[in-house]
């Protein structure tokens, strides 16, 4: 039987606030255990939550970013369960009245096609602490620094059909939230964690199968692997005539497998009810408009603009608009050189290539956008060839200076002096009588191929600095 995968994702996004959602503790990553856990975070008796304005603003920014309805009166609820990393014995979350309602956004797949993915809702909640299982005489250590870090839980519709779509969705989400500046999107530090709901159904069926939930997957690659693995597991069960058990599973990256979570075996009854220590959050039109006015251009808008304004392909626009930084860099290169297509090519091939090889972030890039624009300018004004430009770029990367300085210092400027070139062309023709004869005997089509030999020889003679266009013209004149 052919199976269709149905995937919905719940993404827990840490919001980039300075302080926690309900207390004035710092949210800095990597601090000594429990040094960022205040009386509120520790659920000391009598402590009360007060809501962080920035967390609300960030949630509204996200809502506007996906064209969602903003909850005009959103309510915090208590989600009750006992766990040592949950000091109050309840998590403050939003259940019936989330701050962000239904929305959707466009993702782009590798083949260049786009899909619209529905967002069911997004709500604010607090993160839990961390349990550390290293050996403390057979006990578990609890660090509550992370407890109370603001999270936006973003719930998608079950619109995704395979691992590649799930990853494309996550990448688009990552791009959106970093554009908005509402999260650092640092997956290695847990800023974006994902629960995957996955079920199978026969192709053509429109009822949903029983789903398994895979908790806390924290990289694009693991999401892809966890889905592939879970797909195979479920197919095997279904094809053996078995039934999928609705359960929570854990993806183990070391073993590349999912397994049931023991701690979630007992069906929980979370006893949600409105958090009496907090009041409804009322958001009015004026507030929404003030947030809207501050929204940056979003990835989708930028992508469409790159296609319209610069004539880029959908694929190129997608790569370049992926992050706000890269898009800004690209546009600065265009501004400096004036040619968007060459700029797009250079940024994607040479720049990203160098960054990837060096495992560098754009922020660490040693070549500024104006410097790269300057280099491209030298290709455009025929000072150097594209090939020489790559050498110059390499030297710029090594910190040897600006393009003009390197061209000058290494004497790489293209030879465009017609007298000099004419001499070289004549020298090559004189040294290659056999090839000349062949050329002259050939028809027009074949000549076009054979002329390459002479061009190559001239380039060799000029150490690559001859202006290829002029060489071609001279050869056409001389080879008669």
């Amino acid at each position, binding site marked *: 039987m052919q199976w269709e995968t149905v995937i919905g994702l719940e993404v827990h996004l840490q919001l980039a606030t300075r302080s926690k959602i309900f207390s004035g503790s710092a949210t800095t990553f990597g601090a000594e255990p429990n040094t960022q856990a205040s*009386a509120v975070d520790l*659920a000391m*008796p009598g402590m009360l939550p007060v809501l962080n304005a920035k967390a609300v603003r960030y949630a509204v920014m996200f809502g506007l970013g996906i064209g969602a309805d903003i909850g005009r009166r959103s309510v915090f609820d208590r989600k009750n369960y006992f766990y*040592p990393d949950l*000091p109050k014995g309840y998590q403050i979350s939003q259940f019936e009245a989330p701050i962000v309602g239904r929305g959707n956004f466009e993702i782009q797949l590798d083949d260049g096609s786009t899909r619209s993915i529905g967002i069911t809702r997004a709500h604010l909640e607090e993160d839990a602490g961390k349990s550390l299982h290293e050996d403390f005489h057979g006990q578990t250590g609890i660090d509550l620094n992370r407890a109370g870090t603001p999270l936006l839980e973003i719930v998608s519709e079950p619109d995704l059909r395979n691992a590649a779509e799930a990853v494309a969705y996550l990448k688009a989400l990552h791009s959106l939230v970093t554009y908005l500046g509402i999260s650092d999107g640092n997956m290695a530090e847990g800023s974006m964690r994902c629960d995957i709901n996955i079920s199978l159904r026969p192709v053509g069926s429109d009822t949903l199968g029983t789903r398994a939930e895979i908790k806390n997957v924290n990289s694009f690659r693991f999401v892809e692997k966890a889905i592939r693995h879970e797909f195979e597991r479920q197919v095997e069960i279904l094809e053996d005539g078995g039934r999928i058990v609705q359960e929570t599973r854990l993806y183990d990256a070391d073993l590349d497998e999912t397994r049931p979570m023991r701690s979630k075996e007992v069906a929980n009854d979370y006893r949600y009810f409105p958090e009496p220590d907090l*009041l409804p959050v009322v958001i009015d039109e004026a507030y929404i408009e003030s947030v809207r006015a501050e929204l940056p251009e979003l990835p989708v808008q930028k992508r469409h603009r790159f296609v319209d304004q610069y004539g880029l392909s959908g694929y190129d626009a997608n790569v370049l608009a992926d992050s706000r930084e890269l898009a800004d860099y690209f546009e600065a290169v265009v501004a400096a050189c004036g040619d968007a297509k060459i700029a797009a090519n250079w940024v994607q091939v040479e720049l990203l290539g160098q960054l990837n090889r060096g495992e560098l972030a754009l922020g660490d890039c040693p070549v500024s956008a104006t410097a790269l624009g300057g280099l491209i300018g030298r290709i455009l004004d025929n000072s150097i060839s594209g090939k020489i430009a790559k050498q110059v770029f390499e030297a710029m990367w090594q910190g040897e200076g600006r393009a003009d300085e390197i061209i000058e210092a290494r004497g790489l400027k293209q030879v465009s002096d017609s007298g000099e070139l004419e001499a070289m062309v004549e020298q090559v023709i004189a040294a290659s009588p056999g090839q000349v004869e062949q050329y002259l005997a050939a028809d027009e089509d074949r000549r076009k191929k054979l002329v390459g030999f002479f061009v190559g020889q001239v380039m060799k003679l000029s150490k690559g600095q001859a202006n290829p266009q002029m060489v071609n013209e001279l050869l056409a004149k001389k080879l008669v």
Partner: protein
Amino acid sequence: MHDKSVAQLIAGLHARQFSSVELSRCFLDRIGRLDGAINSFITVDESAVLAAAGAADQRIAAGGAAPLTGIPIAHKDIFCTDGMRTSCGSRMLDNFVPPYDATLIGKFRREGAIILGKTNMDEFAMGSSNESSYYGPVSNPWDKRLVPGGSSGGSAAAVAAMLAPAATGTDTGGSIRQPAAFCGITGIKPTYGRVSRLGMVAFASSLDQAGPMARSAEDCALLLNCMAGHDPLDSTSSELPAEDYCARLDNSLEGLRIGLPREYFGEGLAADTARHIDSALRELEAQGATLVEVSLPHSHLTIPAYYVIAPAEASTNLSRFDGVRYGHRCKDPVDLHDLYTRTREEGFGAEVKRRILVGTYALSAGYYDAYYKKAQQVRRLIKQDFTDCFEQVDIIAGPTTPGPAFALGAKSDDPVAMYLEDIYTLAVNLAGLPGMSIPAGFVDGKPLGLQLIGRHFDEARLLNVAHRFQQATDWHLQRPPDPAGEES
């Protein structure tokens, strides 16, 4: 000194008739001699009291005194006190010494008031008799066989027995007003949100409110002036500025319209209690007030609604007591589950466990709509009853309790009978209104309280009515026999 009002003590301190150290020593001495028979205090730190009193004396001498500088005040053991045990009447917090002050405690400290000690209370404020305390029951100073009321029973008994000039309490369903009535003192539960809840161990978050307990309305006003006000660290704290609660105490009652809810004077109210309440109301009428019969038609739903909402909120407020970060932890837990279940079995008393279970049930899947949601709907109906009444009248008056204090042990075995004691006080908390109880007579030597209920944030008017009543009567000046049997 011990029988003087707070107002008189302030005057005495400023006239240098006595120092704060002398005053504090007087109360420490009385507590040492007399509290054994009453059990109204859980913790008293003598050296801290005297150090604070010494500092207060210097401040008075330097001319920088605030109204309550140098006045010893007892605090219900529900308010966190930095460096001083805060037990909440529970074994769970028997070893808990918070490294922080409740906002209210901080205000008293800044004012230069002396923290005289921490008073006994029903465990986690759950009770109407002060019998659920881990530290043993409190006796009513008027008759040691009687309960003092609860949950602020220790504060009420301490003030009545003149072991403290005044005290703080908290009121979730009558826990200031009912013990004030039973002990013959004056107490006010302010409007919900008027006094900060930060650092006050939570029982039911949407109902809890702190307030003063003293021997007169004027003294309550003096304390409330220090306690009331916005706290940015409590989301439910009102931003409405607090007023000077002493400013209007003497206003005339001419033209005041007092509503008497039919439902508070019917079946269930003891006849002799009703008689005393009636003559108290005649006194107010004599001062120019008009008595108007009104109705609170949903009164019969008050107890059931309250006993869903309060336990539901409590059940989750008390989840933090898990033996991990502070407080009681069971010995040698074999696993996490054992740590939780045994810590909580040992740390909580029977009534607290009952309420946690009832609250958990009311919130659990399948019952939420029938219990919790229904109770919150009824709550709105109850509040609307008051809103309707306040269109016709300025305040509402009636009995604080169905009768005077009952005997220790009389109801401790029957939770529902105990809950019925709160019939007249619960609605005020559900509606978030201010309410107070003032002494209004005695039945067989047992004090009775008249309850006054006001509009939201109309505390000053309640205090005004109470003060005018106390200017014309002397119920609040009656004193119980000295606890050790000596003449006071």
